């Protein structure tokens, strides 16, 4: 069987371009004197992580993705173990804990979970071919997803947990589950959601309320939404120019080198800049969908779909948040936001996607 011998160029180019834009914008967001005191040389650190990320991506792209699927259950239980450990360790600290600190490195288990859940979900669907379509099999799948999700929600990291729901929806769709079951479960989740309200921390409740009515909380998250909209809106078509965004430069925007990096782009590079970013993301995602369609087996299709949606939903939720379309949930923008852990795991997913493409039969156009 002829294999496409090369790594997918479109993926490589889009990711590289996005990473470069990310570094430039992180530089812009942290370059002012007051701020750089705290975030000294953030862009250099990000550059370091990008290099590491690309190396890891190349290595992963050479590893047959079936290997990951095979060890996925072990990884799944390891991830559960980490989450429980985090819960126990975090209990002593007020407001919970999302990170492990190992010397100079910090590591966020929910990032790891994103990868592991897609892998083990793929394995589960492939293993239970024919059963997954039935209600019983579906319930078992939900249970498998629900355990880590609840652990992530109580961390508390509502954002990451919420992202899984649409991702799982589409993975199951490609996995062959009947549409009416999926719609039913989606609806029942909607009905059950008031129950989850009680699980939320106060600040998360406030964020959701302030999303519906930003003026209700001008001190807290409503403030961030308004400021982000001002930054992007004032950017206009051409933007205020690199390093010239008044909103971002004056620290109007909270977290502007991490979760709100898109607002900085919107302000400084304008509609043209953000359109380029959106276009790069669109190219990347569509290439991913193509890879999913052309994957050599069912497992590859499902895995690729999961990865693609993991990215697509994160992109949509993060940008939607900066545009005031969605509540603030603290999801980074893939490849652009500052943060080593998130970038590294994104690159692992890209590596797997590259391998699925690499091994796909010649039908890839």
């Amino acid at each position, binding site marked *: 069987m002829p294999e496409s011998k090369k790594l997918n160029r479109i993926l490589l180019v889009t990711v590289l371009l996005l990473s470069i834009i990310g570094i430039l914008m992180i530089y812009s967001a942290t370059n002012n004197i007051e701020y750089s005191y705290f975030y000294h040389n953030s862009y250099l650190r990000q550059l370091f992580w990008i290099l590491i990320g690309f190396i890891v991506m190349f290595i992963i792209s050479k590893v047959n993705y079936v290997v990951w699927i095979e060890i996925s259950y072990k990884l799944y239980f390891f991830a559960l173990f980490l989450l429980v450990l985090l819960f126990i360790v975090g209990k002593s600290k007020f407001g919970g804990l999302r990170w492990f600190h190992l010397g100079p490195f910090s590591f966020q288990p929910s990032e790891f979970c994103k990868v592991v859940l897609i892998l083990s979900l793929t394995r589960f669907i492939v293993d239970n071919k024919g059963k997954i379509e039935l209600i019983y099999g579906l319930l078992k799948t939900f249970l498998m997803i629900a355990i880590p999700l609840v652990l992530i929600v109580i961390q508390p990291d509502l954002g990451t947990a919420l992202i899984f729901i649409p991702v799982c929806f589409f993975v199951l*769709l490609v996995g062959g589950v009947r549409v009416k079951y999926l719609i039913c479960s989606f609806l029942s989740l909607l009905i059950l959601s008031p129950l989850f309200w009680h699980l939320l921390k106060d*600040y998360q409740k406030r964020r959701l309320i302030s999303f519906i009515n*930003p*003026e209700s909380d*001008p001190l807290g998250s409503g403030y961030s939404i308004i400021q982000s909209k001002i930054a992007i809106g*004032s950017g206009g*078509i051409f933007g205020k120019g690199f390093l010239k965004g008044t909103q971002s430069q004056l620290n109007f925007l909270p977290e502007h080198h991490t979760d709100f990096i898109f607002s900085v782009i919107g302000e400084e590079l304008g509609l043209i800049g953000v359109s380029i970013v959106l276009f790069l993301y669109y190219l990347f995602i569509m290439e991913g*969908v193509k890879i999913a369609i052309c994957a050599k087996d069912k497992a590859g299709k499902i895995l690729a779909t999961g990865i693609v949606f993991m990215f697509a939903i994160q992109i949509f939720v993060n940008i939607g948040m900066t545009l005031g379309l969605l509540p603030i949930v603290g999801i980074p923008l893939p490849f652009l936001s500052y943060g080593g852990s998130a970038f590294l795991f994104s690159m692992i997913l890209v590596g797997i996607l590259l391998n699925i493409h690499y091994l796909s039969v010649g039908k890839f156009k």
Partner: protein
Amino acid sequence: MVLERLQDKIEEKRFKFITVFISFLFLILFIRLVILQIIENEKYKKLAESNSIRVIPERAARGIIYDRYREKLVDNIPSFTVSIIPADLRNKEKVIEKLSQILNISEEEIYEKLDRQKYKVFEAIKIKGNLNSQVISVIEEHKLELPGVLIHTEPKRNYINNDIASHILGYVGEVSLSEINKGNYYLGDLIGKSGIEKRYDSYLRGVNGATQIMVDSRGREIKIVGKKASSKGMDIMLTIDLKLQRKCEELLKDKKGVIIAMDPRDGEIYAMASKPSFNPNMFSNPLEKESWDDLISNPDRPLLNRAIAGLYSPGSTFKVVLACAALEEHILDLKDLFVCHGTYWYSTWNYNCWKREGHGSLNIIDAITYSCDIFFYQTGLVVKIDKISEYSKLFGLGEETRIDLDGEKKGLVPTAEWKERTFHEHWMPGNTIQLSIGQGYLLATPIQMINVYNIIINNGTLYKPYLVKFINDREIFPEVLKRVSLRDDTLNIVKKGLWGAVNKSGGTGWRAKSNFNIAGKTATIENPHGPSHASFIGFAPFSAPEISVMVFLEGGGSGGEIAAPIAKSVIEEYYKLKKERYARK
């Protein structure tokens, strides 16, 4: 084959849906961007160019604290606060120099405060609160030289009765940096630092509001963009009776010590006075460093709530625990007599009774009534250390009473094993002898000791002592802390002894005798650092007790002479107030 085709077809359809779906998501984002950046561009440009939004926090008022009869103990009064909006600071150095002169605080302090919130340059940062109108008028006069300086009012905590009940109420202060990180606090927020203010802080503190105003290029307000009203914290009603509390504090005037008055039937605390005390209003005003140092370094430790954190040898009031142990374990009964000659020889050591001429021969009831030390030395030696500490723990010594205040001490119930561990020495009979009259290693807080008596009064049931009766409309109900199983005859014997101590001639607590049928026990505790500590724990009426009182005076002298009359005054005041309230109804 056909089936596979069908599946392929389904899959194709689904992937088509996925493509459309994702494209749709991107389209939404793009349309939104066009709306913001092209259609609404002008509006946002204006907002951004003038950097025109300022945030002025509106501090929430804390809940009111009432006594059990709805008498206000703590409320809030408005006070002037000066804040700075960093973005509007022009001539930063000059303005800060000027402001530091007017406010009489160092420039460094202002810089430090600005530094703490350096990422919120459009938000008013509190510099100093609780300013008098003179200072405010000076600032108003120099307004033009002070761009970016803002005056507004904030609620300030007002302790209506100054130092009355200060240890119960506690005090508030501005949040420290470490506390800010623990919860949803803003710089300049008030947080309870001790007492009810601390323990119930999450209820008492409200939710801050804020106003977002749009200003012109010179920092003048144009319009209000957003407003969120602050909401006041929850009100709290205490179990404390202010009038009785006031009486207790008067009785302790110029003394060092504790009075606790409570209901043994449910654990409600009517009064809990600890002296010396402090005036919590001091902390509402910006505290001068010297007065803080005074409070901290004062050897009398006025901030210490002696009722829950003062560790003392309980002395003779402890004898009832030993009596219960001896009776419950069938080691003693009414027929057993010990003889007291005033001195007791154990091997070559001699131990005295407080009454040097001796009590003669007496049974356990009389031993409690006349507080004979020698009776209890010998009882202790037969009951033995293991049982004594077992019963001490049974009566709640050595563990927290879980009263709703922070800073409670556990005290110490010594055991042979404890001594071995701590001093690497064996437990000696001399240690048991000292322990038998509540001295030596034993340490207890006044609240623990009144609990010991509450157990006896209440026939073995102990309620958790508590101070908060209502949080807003939610009632806090009494909670049983433990049930100690004691036989009726044990209880009767001990109670008879306690009745005799006050009501029989020659009883050590005779000065507490009153029409209200008081019973109780005195203690005069040897104090190596000065005069003896005086203590009395009593209750009334004997037949169906509704109030128990603990008096402890550091260096007060004789328990019978000094503490018993004070306890009597407290109980009489309680009945007097009860009668007045009844008459009014």
